[in-house]
């Protein structure tokens, strides 16, 4: 027996794709992904219309989706993140139906609970055997973890694995098992290795970024959480990575042995694992080549599903035991609400990813951001879009001071006792506005172009169109 089907078109036909159905994609190939465009182009040629696309994230390389929207091949988009190329077009009114934004935890939760059923899931697999066992760890298009694809493969009515690296059955150490897979299609290339992972993720050299990172590490040290068993997540942004570097220095100097590093994993977390700062890495997505190499060869570096990472409806998830997460922001308001969906002009250019999941789970959710970017203060009266509720954010670190959520007076006292520059969040806003001037409110359209659905399924906020002058 073999599940190999000669062409993509044949596989889609066998899967029974019809008008109005839902197709799904995962984003581990990031901006190097060929599969989403390959599949959607084929579907368009087959004449299927009015589809819902459920993708864990959409990058600039997926901009051709806009054409499929215009020609009614795609009617609706569900995603956790959308970069600017498509986001800008959505913000100017490309779609009739609002985009549904979820989180990296909310998406698998809703798939598994049957709230967002998938008809056909397409799994881009850097290595697969003829029965569909597949992994992201091997092959020329290796991307490491396939964490976000598990719920899709498990719950879709039909699952099609697409690979450019067919290996003999049975593939050892598979991620997604053959029990979930209906068809396997072999193509020349599933992605461009240069876009899949960055060669190296780099620590910032910007002195302001380094200063914030150093303060961030001191906040963690003063929080009382930095002790044996410590668990930690940080993003791949330059300042977040620099914070991890300073944190590592503290952990090594004080001989603190943490439990796990979580999330999107970079080479810096791998270094921390190897040097004994953590016992394990729980990896839902690899950000660079060093992380891919590590998950392939180091049994302490483990792949986890999106459900285990952050699902709010799972019996437990890794975010629930997280001590500290370091997160970014495009805007933070005086109630500590965070925007990572839109830029300051209201155009969509991002999304939650795991932002609000980790903020909800972590004992200390920290935002690290410069007090202003170019001429725009980071702290506003009200964020353009609430991506993460302020009630789940504990502290904002800037180069001009630290603001602590008033609900965390215990933390505030600890930071003050450590001699850290604690200020009111309103003061940070005023400090920035004294330098930049007070920005005028941006005009907002009257049409909802996207809804932000919180991890528990409730509507958190709506994003409106940006009126064109």
């Amino acid at each position, binding site marked *: 027996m073999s599940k190999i089907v000669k062409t993509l078109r044949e596989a889609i036909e066998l899967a029974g794709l019809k008008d109005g159905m839902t197709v799904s994609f995962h984003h581990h190939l990031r901006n190097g992904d060929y599969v989403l465009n390959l599949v959607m182009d084929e579907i368009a040629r087959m004449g299927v219309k009015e589809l819902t696309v459920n993708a864990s994230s959409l990058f600039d390389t997926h901009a051709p989706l806009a054409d499929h929207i215009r020609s009614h091949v795609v009617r609706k988009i569900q995603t956790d993140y959308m970069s600017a190329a498509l986001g800008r077009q959505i913000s100017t009114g490309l779609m009739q139906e609002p985009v549904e934004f979820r989180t990296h935890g909310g998406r698998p939760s809703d798939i598994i609970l049957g709230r967002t059923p998938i008809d056909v899931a397409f799994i881009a697999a850097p290595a697969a055997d003829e029965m569909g066992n597949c992994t992201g760890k091997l092959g020329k298009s290796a991307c490491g973890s396939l964490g976000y694809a598990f719920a899709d493969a498990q719950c879709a009515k039909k699952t099609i694995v697409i690979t450019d690296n067919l290996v003999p059955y049975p593939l050892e150490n598979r991620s997604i098992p053959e029990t979930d897979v209906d068809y396997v299609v072999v193509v020349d290339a599933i992605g461009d290795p240069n876009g899949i992972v960055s060669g190296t993720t780099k620590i910032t050299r910007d002195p302001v970024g380094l200063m914030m990172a150093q303060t961030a590490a001191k906040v963690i040290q003063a929080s009382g959480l930095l002790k044996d068993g410590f668990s930690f997540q940080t993003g791949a942004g330059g300042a977040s990575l620099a914070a991890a570097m300073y944190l590592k220095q503290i952990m090594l100097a004080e001989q603190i042995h943490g439990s796990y590093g979580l999330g999107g994993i970079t080479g810096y977390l791998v270094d921390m694992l190897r040097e004994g700062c953590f016992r394990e890495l729980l990896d839902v997505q690899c950000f660079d080549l060093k992380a891919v190499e590590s998950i392939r060869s180091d049994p302490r570096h483990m792949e986890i599903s999106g459900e285990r990472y952050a699902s709010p409806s799972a019996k437990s998830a890794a975010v629930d035991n997280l001590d500290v997460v370091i997160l970014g922001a495009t805007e933070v308001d005086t109630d500590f609400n965070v925007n990572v969906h839109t830029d300051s002009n209201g155009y969509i250019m991002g999304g939650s990813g795991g932002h609000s999941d980790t903020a909800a789970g972590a004992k200390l959710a920290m935002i690290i951001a410069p007090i202003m970017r170019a001429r*725009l203060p980071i702290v506003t009266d009200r964020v353009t879009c609430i991506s993460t509720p302020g009630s789940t954010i504990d502290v904002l670190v800037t180069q001009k001071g630290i603001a602590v959520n008033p609900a965390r007076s215990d933390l505030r006292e600890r930071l003050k006792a450590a001699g850290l520059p604690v200020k009111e969040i309103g003061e940070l806003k005023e400090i920035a506005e004294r330098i930049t001037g007070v920005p*005028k409110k941006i005009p907002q359209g009257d049409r909802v172009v996207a809804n932000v659905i919180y991890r528990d399924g409730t509507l958190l906020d709506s994003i409106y169109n940006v009126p064109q002058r």
Partner: protein
Amino acid sequence: MQKIVKSATAGTLESSDVYVELTPSDGGNEIEIESVVLAQFGDAIRKSAEAVLKQFSIENAKLKLIDRGALDCVIRARVETAVLRAKEG
């Protein structure tokens, strides 16, 4: 009144800077602004540019600003530099 006698530029297109182009015009001052923060600071930028032209009694300038989010002091300094480079004497 002082006169703009030649074209001049100041500044760069780097983030947080503004690139200023100044050329002589026949009738009055003319200001064109392109900015990443036009909605938030477009009026403030125009006001500052007008203030600098007035300070030097310039009345025949065609001024173009391509702003990458420069602070007010930067905008004033770049316009002033362009004026000094472009006026007679």
